[in-house]
């Protein structure tokens, strides 16, 4: 086992110490930060906090309830709403720039619900939203405050599974975003680690170091060291990114306190880890088998690229899975080993998944991982000294 650690350490440090690695790791969060910063600023600058006005010809807003002004959050702040007696007065205020737009409620407003908006340019959505909220609040003025609140905010529906263990809240924004982000991270990790692993295996052949290596260490220990070492490189990269993501989330939560109610479900996290780890080993070992049976880096990378297709495929169906997480198609994708690491956590986050499906999926993944490792070991043993010749799957499975 000692020698396995030597291989692991060598493989890990070889990549992590390189300038190229450090650059690659830091460039992604920096890139995302710049993109996020630009979009945040562009939204911030587009918000117009100039008050809006209204002319009430229907007289139903005789004693209006005003909107509260909201907190420090620039996105949550309500616009100030100023009443005007006549259209002319409102028009002149608009001309002078005191207000950015005004609504006219006709005398028959309560019967028709029609209103008119006068503005110099097309106003932002907050103008409509805030005025609509203002109208609703006043329409509900006569009701008890609790009833008014329920009407305004709608119901918070909580889904309870038949087994009664797991509950999903439809208000949990993170429950939708997180599985998608986790899936993307998984794909990235597989790609990165798999790439490193392949490179290291094919290099062993290109450098013709195989004979020295196998007369020093057993192929199984070498393989284990290489797979774990290179997976660790990919995980290091992902963990650094997650660290930046955590900073980002803390920052976002500070800015948007309304998101704080959202929480990460621990059950979802457990399922995520349980599917990610065996899937990770499965894909890595399959890539290793290819690395050991092909003779050139380029060729190996091309074949390994094929593995990311079934992993990426579920992203095409995200909308279908989200709208119907328990359809036969969704269930199939969540059990199929290649799409499982992306789809199963997503279904768990969105819906109540029967326990047998979760257990089956994870078991299949573990069996697939062990089989792939076995395949990789064999491919390595047989492909050992074949320079320039590819090993066929048939040979790997047949030969003793």
């Amino acid at each position, binding site marked *: 086992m000692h020698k396995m650690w030597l291989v692991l350490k060598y493989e890990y440090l070889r990549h992590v110490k390189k300038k190229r690695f450090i650059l690659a790791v830091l460039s992604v969060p920096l890139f995302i930060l710049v993109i996020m910063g630009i979009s945040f600023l562009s939204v911030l600058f587009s918000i117009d906090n100039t008050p809006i006005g209204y002319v009430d010809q229907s007289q139903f807003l005789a004693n209006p309830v005003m909107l509260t002004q909201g907190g420090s959050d620039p996105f949550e702040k309500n616009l100030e709403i100023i009443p005007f007696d006549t259209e002319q007065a409102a028009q002149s205020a608009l001309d002078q720039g005191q207000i950015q737009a005004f609504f006219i409620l006709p005398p028959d407003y309560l019967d028709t619900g029609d209103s008119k908006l006068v503005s110099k340019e097309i106003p932002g959505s907050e103008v409509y939203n805030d005025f609509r909220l203002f109208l609703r609040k006043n329409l509900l003025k006569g009701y008890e405050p609790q009833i008014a609140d329920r009407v305004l905010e709608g119901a918070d529906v909580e889904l309870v599974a038949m087994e009664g263990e797991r509950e999903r809240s439809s208000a949990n924004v993170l429950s939708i975003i997180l599985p998608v982000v986790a899936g993307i991270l998984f794909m990235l990790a597989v790609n990165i680690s798999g790439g490193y692993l392949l490179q290291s295996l094919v290099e062993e052949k290109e450098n013709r170091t195989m*004979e*020295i290596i196998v007369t020093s260490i057993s192929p199984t220990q070498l393989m284990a060291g290489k797979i774990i070492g290179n997976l660790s490189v990919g995980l290091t990269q992902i963990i650094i990114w997650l660290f930046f993501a955590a900073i980002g989330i803390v920052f976002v939560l500070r800015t948007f306190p309304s998101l704080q109610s959202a929480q990460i479900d621990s059950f979802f996290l457990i399922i995520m880890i349980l599917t990610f780890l065996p899937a990770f080993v499965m894909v890595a070992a399959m890539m290793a088998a290819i690395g050991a049976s092909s003779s050139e880096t380029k060729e190996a990378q091309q074949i390994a690229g094929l593995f990311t297709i079934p992993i990426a495929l579920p992203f095409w169906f995200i909308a279908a899975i989200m709208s119907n997480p328990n359809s036969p198609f969704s269930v199939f994708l969540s059990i199929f080993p290649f799409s499982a690491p992306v789809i199963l956590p997503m279904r768990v986050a969105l819906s109540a998944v029967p326990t047998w499906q979760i257990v089956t999926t994870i078991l299949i993944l573990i069996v697939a991982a062990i089989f792939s490792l076995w395949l990789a070991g064999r491919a390595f043993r047989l492909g050992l000294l074949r320079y320039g010749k590819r090993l066929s799957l048939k040979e790997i499975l047949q030969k003793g």
Partner: protein
Amino acid sequence: MSTIDVDNITKSFGTQIAVDGVTFQVEPGEIFGLLGPNGAGKTTSIRIILDIFKPDHGSVSIFGGAMTEDKKNRIGYLPEERGLYQEVSLENCLVYLATLKGMSEKRSQERISSFLERFNLSDHRKKKVKELSKGMQQKAQLITTLVHDPELIIIDEPFSALDPINTQMVKDLLREQSKLGKTIVMCTHQMHQVEQLCDRLVLINRGKTILYGKLAEIQEQFSGNEIILRTENPLPANIPGIQSLHSENSHLVYKAHLEDGVSPQVILQNLLAQNIILKQFEVSSPSLDEIFIQVVTKSGEFDA
């Protein structure tokens, strides 16, 4: 107990039989030659000994048993397919390979430093392996073979890619290792290179053993058939007992092939009887190359 005991091993790749019933032993402390022309099955035999290939038939015992992970640390192997990690510095590459042979990092660094010094590679230790010349890489590979102070050294074609100076250095190194009591197996097709080094040898051709035994005994066995003569005057065309006579580049130096059953002593008597003035009379000790050619042409098993 023999260090290596190869018992009737056979290995074929597809329809090609690479090794066909080869048997030999390597005794502790000797320099053993595993010889034969290109494609004779030498490298395959070595790979079977080192458990890289499994033999189809027959068995190999090393240090008195099957290969284990611990035994790998006691063997130094210089493969014919030379290879080092190209993308890392020479020092890192050597230290990594030494630690895989069970050495501590600190000790391997010390040993590698002294080897680099000795091989004039100290200035290149920080260079990437791929930046080194072929000869330097060859020497670096030799360090990898010897750094963990192995009891058994197996080297495949040790002199390829080496100039005469480095060839001499490697020979000296092997002699030195032999004096330290190490067992050495040398595998080469350059038979003349090992004549001065080997104690015993096995000669294989087309996967089969054709000669096996002590170098001195083999040479003895094949000597006596030829004598070298240097005379003051040209030799007469026919001397009893001499089958054929070749004149080397100088006209007055001859190589005489004797008729079967005629001893060199008889020829000497005949020459003296004819009053031929001799400057040199030598029973030629045949080179391994000559012995090899003689054996394979006799058995008709040589493809040109």
